[in-house]
Every structure is written in structure tokens, then in C-alpha cells.
């Protein structure tokens, strides 16, 4: 029956396809249909004996690339049936679009809430699938709506400034006279926002992230906290923002000017990164900086409308907000670094990991309609495991991407991995995570101190800087390597508590500090390194440890989605106590500053907010 149905359907489909003429989309349907047909006849030849369907029989089939794969009849039959139904739906949708029943790319993917990397992957899949099914208009320029993005951002920014602008209208200082001019400008833009078809006009639910970006910029510059903060909190976090704001107000007569320029500048960078990662399936070169021409444009991206593109972009930006953005702002304030963050930073570290993960998602999507997909399905249908429904490997892929991200984690932004590690992790994963955090700390302390020694002790008579640096690294490895010095049971306990108690794992850090202290004492007693070196080493260790811990405790802006309303918000979040707070009170001096500067140069994605 199935065979009959399938063959009948495919025959009709074949005729239909032939009558339409050539098109890349149709070629794909065609190719896939032929593949299905081949598989149907294989099913017929292998799984039917004397009109009996041999449900649990397994047969091997040769894939076009020559590999032999084992299939289970029952599952393979179900799979083919599903694929055919899906293909039928795809083709029907295609017809509807081709004959103008619906406008091309008409269905907006609206309200795409993004909570996590998986969500981003899911959206990517959803968008891709939808677009693969519906896209007809492939002749559009890549990112044709950049202007609209700026409009959206500006309108979001203006809506934020409205209360400020209004409050300024009543005052008479020189500052406010200048602001009056801006008030009229702002009002003009706000009026424009209200008219359909004008710059920045938005349909509710579309491109909402621009509000978030606006908030991100706003929150990073226009300082105030909604609630009264303690002195301690203000010293650590409020001072930075107030410094920024005072600098902006000195330098730019109007902060709106500054903020919109930050916004559009930042957007340009993100745009480029998104373009690189989503806009093309195959570039000439293989990296962000040296990518050359686009050999194979991503059709799905092209036929998304502006708002859909923006939404994908927003997903990416949800993760970068507060990190490169604040760094970018700092760069603009100081005027030293032109633009602060650039493509290099967006393309590197954590964000790159997200893109990579999404890229793997893309691969999976491609494979879904191809032989690899069939193969992966078939492979998981092993005799011992055939009842298990094959699951897409996408989550594992994200996990491995996350794992990769924190493998070289100390170069990447820490916050996302921290949360993801906690969210996704099994006990084993958490333990690996804990070890990695500790390793990150050790490597920071170790490399920072080593570089400091090589820089500061190279001309000091009687000291061999290289020998001292080697001793230092030896010492740090001995004291701080939890992997080596902790009993596995103790380590597992600490790891469990470390993630469980986040972000309040003070007890764990204290315990760890104690263990390190004991370790340190034992090591010094053993006399592995001469007393003269030990004294210098311990002083440098204190500084490096302090800097590493301090920079591990800062405020960031976090993009969160309110589950009740589905609205995205940018909130200040304290990302703290990763390695515990300070354990010494060393002299804070040029050495500290040297290490901080070095740290910033090496770990550019670490932003001090």
C-alpha cells in the first residue's frame, strides 16, 4: 500500500515538477525526490518477501558516496513516509508562492524570543526551513535594509530619551538651550515613528530587539540605577558609569549625538559579523577578515524580509550586549582607540563560538535534506537500538561548542559560558566546568605574572628573569592546579557546590583558598625554589591573583526575556565571584595597573562593567 501510494505520488509530483521549468529550488526538490524514489525501490526489493513486509529485517544499502549503511525496514519505511509527506507540503507551498497566491517571503517570523544558544539555533532552523519552503525572490541584495536598521535603532533611542528631553524643556541653562534644539529634533523623529511607512516605523512584535539595543546603550551611558545602591556597589560599578557619563558630557554637547553614533557604529560592526555568518553559505576565504567574495549566497537570508533579518541579528546581539558594546562605548569616550571594539572582537572569542555553533546548526539543516541525513538516521537504527527515535544532534553540537568555548575559555567572555555550563551541565560536565574555571584562573595568574617578570626583571642585576619566570610558573602550577592537588572526591564535591551555589559559592571559594594556602606552605617548606625567588614570586602572585579575581567580578548588561510577557529586557547583572573575591590586600600600584593593562590586551573581550 505504502509503496503504491508513494510511487503514485511521486509520479504525479514528477509531472508537476517537469511542467514548471527549471529553478534552483525545483532542482532541489527534484533531486530529493529522486533520492526518495531510489530508496523506495530499495525498500521494495529488500523488505518485501511474498507480499509480507519484514518489519525487523535489516538491509545494507550503498550510499552515493560509496559508504555502506545498515537500514532497518520498519523505521526506514516510516521515515520515507514522513519525508514524502513533508516534501508534498513543501511543493504545495512552493506552488502557492510561485503562482502568487501569497507574496514571496510573506510570513514573518515574528516574536522570536531568544533565551539561549539553543533558541538561536532553533530560530536559525525555523527561519531556514521556512525560507527554504517559501523563498522565491532570490534577487535581493544582501542586507538591503541597513538603512531601516538604523531607523529602528534611532527610533528606539529616541523613545528612551523622550522623558529626558521633556524634562529638559523646562529649564533655562545653556545646556538646556542646546537641548531644546534637540528636543525639536527628537520630537520630529518621534512623530515620524508614528507614521506607517516612515523611517523607523515598526509593526508591533517586529524587530523588538532594537529597543533592547537602545536600552543597552542607554544603560551603559545614562547611568542611574533604579534602586539605591550601597556604597560598596557604587564604588565597584557606579563609578565607572559616572566617569563615562561625565566624559561624554564634557566632550559632546549632546549625548544623543554620541549615543546614536555609538549605536550606528556598533550596528555596522554587528551587521558585518551577521552578514559574514548568515549571509553566505560559502565564502572564498575561510575567516572573517579574509573572506573574499561570497561564492554561494545563503538564499534563506536573502529572502527574509528586513524584520526577519533584524530578528536573527537581534538574537546574536542578545549575547553581545554589554560586552563588546560597553567596550565600544569606552573606546569612543577615551578617543584613544578608534571605535574601541571592531570586527576583530566581534568575530573573536565568545561571539565567534556562537556563530560557530549556529554554523553547525546550519550544516545540520543542509544535511537534513541530503544523503548525510538519511545516513545518520540509518546509522542510529542499529539492531540493538532500533526503537530509539533518532534525535538531531543539534543540542550535542551546541554543547560541544560550549565546551570548546570554555576550553580556551579564558580568552572568551565568561558570563555566557558560566550560565550555560550550569544550565546544560550534567555532574561530569559541571566538574569539567569547575576545573576549567580554576584552570582559567591559574593560567591568568600564571601568564600575567610570567609576562610581568620578563618585562620588569630583565635588567635587574643578579636576577635571571627567565629562570625567575620559570620558577614562578612552576610555583603557580603547583599551588593552583586543582586538578593535581585535590583528591578526586573533594574535587567532585567542590564542583557540585560551585555550580549549585552560583552565584553565591563563597563557601566553596573559601575552602579552595584554604587548600591552596596549605599547598603553598607545603611547597615552600619543601624548598624547591630558593628563598630569594620565593619572596619575589609570592609578591607577584598576590598582584596577579588580585587582578584576575577583580576582573572576574564586574557588572554586565544581560539580555533577558521576561517569561510572562515575552518581552526582552536588558538588565544589569552582577557577574561576580567567579574565583572568589580578593583574598589579599596588596599594595595597589603601578604593578597592578601594568597587569590590568596586560590583561586587557590579551583578553579583549573582558569588559569592565
Amino acid at each position, binding site marked *: 500500500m505504502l509503496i503504491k501510494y508513494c510511487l503514485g505520488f511521486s509520479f504525479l509530483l514528477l509531472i508537476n515538477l517537469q511542467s514548471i521549468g527549471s529553478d534552483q529550488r525545483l532542482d532541489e526538490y527534484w533531486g530529493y525526490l529522486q533520492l526518495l524514489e531510489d530508496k523506495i525501490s530499495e525498500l521494495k526489493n529488500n523488505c518485501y518477501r511474498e507480499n509480507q513486509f519484514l518489519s525487523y529485517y535489516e538491509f545494507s544499502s550503498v550510499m552515493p558516496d560509496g559508504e555502506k549503511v545498515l537500514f532497518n525496514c520498519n523505521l526506514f519505511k516510516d521515515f520515507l513516509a514522513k519525508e514524502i509527506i513533508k516534501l508534498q507540503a513543501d511543493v504545495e507551498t512552493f506552488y502557492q508562492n510561485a503562482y502568487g497566491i501569497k507574496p514571496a517571503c510573506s510570513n514573518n517570523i515574528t516574536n522570536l524570543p531568544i533565551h539561549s544558544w539553543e533558541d538561536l539555533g532553533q530560530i536559525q532552523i525555523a527561519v531556514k526551513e521556512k525560507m527554504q519552503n517559501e523563498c522565491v525572490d532570490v534577487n535581493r541584495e544582501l542586507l538591503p535594509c541597513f538603512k531601516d536598521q538604523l531607523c529602528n535603532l534611532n527610533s528606539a533611542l529616541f523613545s528612551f530619551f523622550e522623558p529626558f528631553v521633556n524634562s529638559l524643556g523646562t529649564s533655562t541653562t545653556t545646556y538646556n538651550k542646546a537641548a531644546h534644539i534637540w528636543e525639536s529634533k527628537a520630537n520630529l523623529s518621534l512623530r515620524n515613528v508614528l507614521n506607517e511607512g516612515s523611517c523607523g516605523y515598526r509593526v508591533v512584535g517586529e524587530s523588538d530587539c532594537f529597543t533592547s539595543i537602545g536600552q543597552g546603550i542607554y544603560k551603559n551611558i*545614562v*547611568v542611574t540605577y533604579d534602586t539605591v545602591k*550601597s556604597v560598596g556597589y557604587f564604588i565597584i560599578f557606579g563609578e565607572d558609569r559616572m566617569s563615562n557619563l561625565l566624559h561624554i558630557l564634557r566632550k559632546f554637547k549632546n549625548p544623543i549625538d554620541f549615543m546614536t553614533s555609538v549605536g550606528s557604529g556598533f550596528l555596522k560592526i554587528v551587521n558585518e559579523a551577521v552578514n559574514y555568518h548568515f549571509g553566505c553559505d560559502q565564502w572564498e576565504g575561510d575567516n572573517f577578515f579574509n573572506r573574499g567574495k561570497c561564492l554561494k549566497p545563503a538564499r534563506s537570508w536573502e529572502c527574509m524580509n528586513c524584520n526577519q533579518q533584524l530578528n536573527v541579528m537581534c538574537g546574536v546581539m542578545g549575547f553581545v550586549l554589554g560586552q563588546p558594546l560597553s*567596550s565600544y562605548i569606552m573606546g569612543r569616550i*577615551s578617543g584613544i582607540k578608534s571605535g574601541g571594539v571592531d570586527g576583530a572582537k566581534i568575530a573573536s572569542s565568545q561571539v565567534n563560538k556562537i556563530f560557530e555553533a549556529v554554523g553547525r546548526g546550519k550544516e545540520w539543516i543542509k544535511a537534513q535534506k541530503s544523503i548525510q541525513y538519511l545516513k545518520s538516521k540509518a546509522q542510529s537504527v542499529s539492531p540493538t537500538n532500533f526503537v530509539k527515535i533518532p534525535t538531531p544532534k543539534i543540542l550535542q553540537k551546541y554543547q560541544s561548542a560550549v565546551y570548546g568555548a570554555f576550553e580556551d575559555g579564558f580568552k572568551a567572555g565568561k558570563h555566557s559560558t558560566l550560565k550555560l555550563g550550569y544550565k546544560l551541565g550534567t555532574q561530569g560536565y559541571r566538574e569539567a566546568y569547575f576545573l576549567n574555571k580554576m584552570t582559567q584562573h591559574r593560567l591568568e595568574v600564571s601568564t600575567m605574572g610570567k609576562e610581568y617578570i620578563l618585562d620588569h626583571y630583565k635588567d635587574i642585576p643578579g636576577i635571571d628573569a627567565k629562570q625567575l619566570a620559570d620558577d614562578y610558573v612552576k610555583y603557580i602550577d603547583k599551588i593552583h592546579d586543582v586538578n593535581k592537588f585535590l583528591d578526586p572526591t573533594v574535587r567532585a564535591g567542590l564542583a557540585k557546590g560551585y555550580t549549585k551555589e552560583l552565584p553565591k559559592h563563597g563557601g566553596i571559594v573559601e575552602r579552595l583558598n584554604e587548600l591552596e594556602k596549605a599547598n603553598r606552605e607545603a611547597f615552600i617548606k619543601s624548598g624547591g625554589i630558593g628563598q630569594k625567588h620565593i619572596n619575589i614570586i609570592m609578591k607577584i602572585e598576590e598582584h596577579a591573583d588580585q587582578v584576575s579575581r*577583580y576582573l572576574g567580578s564586574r557588572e554586565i548588561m544581560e539580555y533577558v526575556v521576561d517569561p510572562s510577557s515575552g518581552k526582552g529586557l536588558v538588565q544589569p547583572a552582577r557577574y561576580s565571584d567567579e574565583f572568589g573575591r580578593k583574598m589579599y590586600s596588596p599594595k595597589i600600584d603601578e604593578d597592578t595597573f601594568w597587569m590590568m593593562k596586560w590583561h586587557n590586551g590579551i583578553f579583549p573581550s573582558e569588559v569592565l562593567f
Partner: protein
Amino acid sequence: MKYFLIFLIFSHVIVMQIEANTTIPFNNQKIIIDLPKGWTYQQNYWGIPLAFINSSKNIIIAVSELAQINPSLTETEKQNYWADYKLGRLAWLSQAAGNLVKFYELEVMPKKQAVSGLVFGYVYKLGQTTFHEKSYYLTCKNVAYNLKYLIDQSQIESMDIIDAMIRGIGCL
């Protein structure tokens, strides 16, 4: 005549003082400040809760209300705040690619004045420009405030006036 003159001068002084003292209702209590010529104030100024502004000189003193400071601040706590301030400023400075010139000595303002608390400050360079930044953490009656300002080297002569202004603050 002599007494009249004295009276005149005296009353004039009082009038001047009344004119000079500005009372600003700000959150939980009123702030009284002697605003010198050229200075105005504004609440919610570009996100600064309360700003004292000298527009001709392009100087702003930013005021934020904070949660109450522990009245019996121990020496260790003061030193910890001071350490956090220094670390924070260095971190900010390294981010802004600036260079440290010096930290001002930590100053503890004693309780006998209307306001008491801690004064932090430092000097740094961004490019060729030298900046002075000071941050006051004050308690006035029972409310704590942060008052912060930023000037460059060319405005250094204004520093004494600004510091006197801040130190002269009272509360109602």
C-alpha cells in the same frame, strides 16, 4: 550712623547668604548648598539624579543618593573601600587606554562637620589631556551621597571652589 552702617553690612551679608544658599528637595531630604556665581543645578540631568552645573566652564558635579553608610565604619572597611576604588579606577583606566598619574591621598572627613565621609580621587591621562577626578562618599544627617566631578588640567584652579562647595553642603 556707624551702627546703621554695621547693620546695613550685616543685613547685606545675611541677604547674600540667603541668596547664595540653595535648598534642593532631593529624594529623602533637602540638600542645602552654597552655589557660587555661574553654577546652577538640575535634577535628572542626562540620567544624573542631581547635577550641579557650571556651563561656562563645562564642569558638572554629579550627585547620587546611596544606601546608608554604616556610621561606625571601621578602619579596615575604609581601607577596603579605598582599595576597591583604586582597583576599579585602574581597571577603568586600562580599558580607556589611559595612564595613571597618581592617586590623591585618602581623606577622611571627620564627623564634626555637617557632612562626613571619605574622599577618593585620582589623576590620569587620556592621550595628552590630564584629568582630575574626585569622588566624595558623604553622609549628611542619615543619608549617604556620592558626589563626583571631573575636570582637566586647565580647570585646576576651579578645584578649590568645587571642593569647598561640596564640603559646605548641609541637609534639612
